[in-house]
């Protein structure tokens, strides 16, 4: 059983790496978008596993993007180094903010993180000299000079890295800390779990991932602006994908990103002006009828049959 599982994973991996060789530029660009949102979705889910609903995804995505564009345009920092620094800055800011806001819970935490993206974009809009203000900022050399195959591999690498981190979170003591915090904080701390330490850790790691994705995304186009970079898209799509695929798992957000990513592209072609309605209907139907998502429902079905 295990060998089958590993060979399937290996085959999928090879297929994912070789994908750009067999497809056209259009499909590669779709795949890049899917990978971008898949990574954001997975990072959002990793935070959700602690029981904290974060709406800060778009905020840290934007911070990473702005940081990378500013330091590569003004300081001439190498693009790849900029991506890493974008992640570090997002993580650093998450650490400082986390000390304050991770004392909040449930809806209060959620609302505060939602406010973060607005605060970031207002600050950036007003720091004209550094950020270019409302009109945004440009860097002239872009990642791989728009070579979409290489960009695809870069985004694939970031996604795979995130998948590995997510699985590490699932297979180490972090899993037990995170799951016990989600189930019952009082029980967790009474049994020695340092709740605050684990919340900060997960918040910083997931924010760093969001910063890295934001940086890589911004440098593909060499452009950032308050509206586009902090767009609620980078929050709402990842959440929808995790819900459609199934939360609290690594595979769920991956499946959700592929389903929603492909269907939204297809719908765009079929009905250019109405595709978002259908998209919304899909999400509503999933939440109503299979609240555990596609992957979650299948997994629970199989494990229930096994135990019978």
């Amino acid at each position, binding site marked *: 059983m295990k060998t089958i599982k590993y060979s399937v994973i290996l085959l999928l991996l090879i297929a994912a790496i070789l994908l750009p060789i067999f497809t056209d530029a259009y499909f590669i660009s779709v795949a890049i978008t899917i990978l971008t949102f898949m990574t954001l979705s997975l990072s959002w889910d990793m935070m959700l596993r602690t029981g904290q609903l974060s709406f800060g995804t778009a905020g840290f995505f934007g911070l990473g993007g702005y940081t990378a564009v500013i330091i590569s345009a003004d300081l001439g920092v190498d693009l790849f180094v900029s991506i890493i620094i974008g992640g570090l800055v997002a993580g650093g800011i998450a650490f400082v903010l986390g000390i304050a806001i991770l004392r909040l819970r449930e809806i209060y935490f959620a609302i505060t993180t939602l406010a973060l993206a607005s605060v970031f974009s207002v600050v950036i809009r007003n720091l004209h000299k550094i950020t270019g203000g409302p009109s945004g900022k440009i860097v002239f050399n872009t990642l791989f000079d728009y070579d979409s195959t290489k960009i695809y591999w870069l985004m694939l690498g970031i996604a795979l890295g995130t998948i590995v981190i997510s699985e590490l979170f699932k297979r*180490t003591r972090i899993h037990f*800390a995170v*799951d*016990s915090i989600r189930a019952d904080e*009082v029980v967790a*701390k009474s*049994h020695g*779990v*340092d*709740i605050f330490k684990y919340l900060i850790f997960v918040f910083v790691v997931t924010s760093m991932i969001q910063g890295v994705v934001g940086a890589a995304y911004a440098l593909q186009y060499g452009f950032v602006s308050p509206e586009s970079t902090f767009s609620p898209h980078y929050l709402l799509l990842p959440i929808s994908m995790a819900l459609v695929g199934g939360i609290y798992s690594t595979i769920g957000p991956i499946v959700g990103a592929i389903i929603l990513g492909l269907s939204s592209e297809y719908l765009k072609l079929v009905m250019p002006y109405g595709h978002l309605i259908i998209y919304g209907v899909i999400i509503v139907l999933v939440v109503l009828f299979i609240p555990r998502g596609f992957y979650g429902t299948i997994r629970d079905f199989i494990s229930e049959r096994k135990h019978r």
Partner: protein
Amino acid sequence: MESILKLQNVTKHFGGLVAVNNVSFEIEKGEILGLIGPNGAGKTTLTNLISGIHWVNEGKIEFEGNDITLLPTHKRCHLGIARTFQISRPLKNMTVVENVMVGALFGKKSNLKLARREAEEICNQIGLEKLDTHFDKITVLDIKKIELARAMATNPRLIFLDEVMSGLNMDETRHMIETVRKIRNTGVTVCIIEHVMSVIRELTERVIVLDRGQIIAEGPYSEVSAQHNVISAYLGEDA
């Protein structure tokens, strides 16, 4: 006798309600102490203060000579204070053995493999079977046992058992009493909060009686249970 826990003039109020009022007592190393009193006397609040779920408003708590009054809950657990919850609180997203592993992983700081083995051992001792089942398919007794096993997995030096016998039938109670004795015999000090008086009579060497947040009596159960003020606390003034 050496004391393991020392409370000095501990007071806790929730708004205008004084739940624990100027309470001082000591728990001796190796004893089984009973903490009794009518509903609302402050027994569970006291446990919450000692384990750090609530902070004291006044007073001081010492554990093995160290002042722990301001220590956060998880650090008190690391020092060796464990507790069960009166209303069982299984971690519903985990299996039986995973619940117990949480105690071993973070209380005792074992690694994953070791924690799994320790958890299995403790479940074995306490009589928990079906280790890989989810909580929704087990009995009340098993949920009670999870509470106890999870607390024991943190490798405590002092354990508070908050009504672990309530809701159990005669056989189950017998079994639980034996388990508590075994725990004490491994060198763990036990403080047991219980409404089932036969359990208190059988298990404890000493009891403390709380009423309205204050200690009203202290001593062996046979003496305390005959005192007029204890009887009236339970049954009312006219009894």
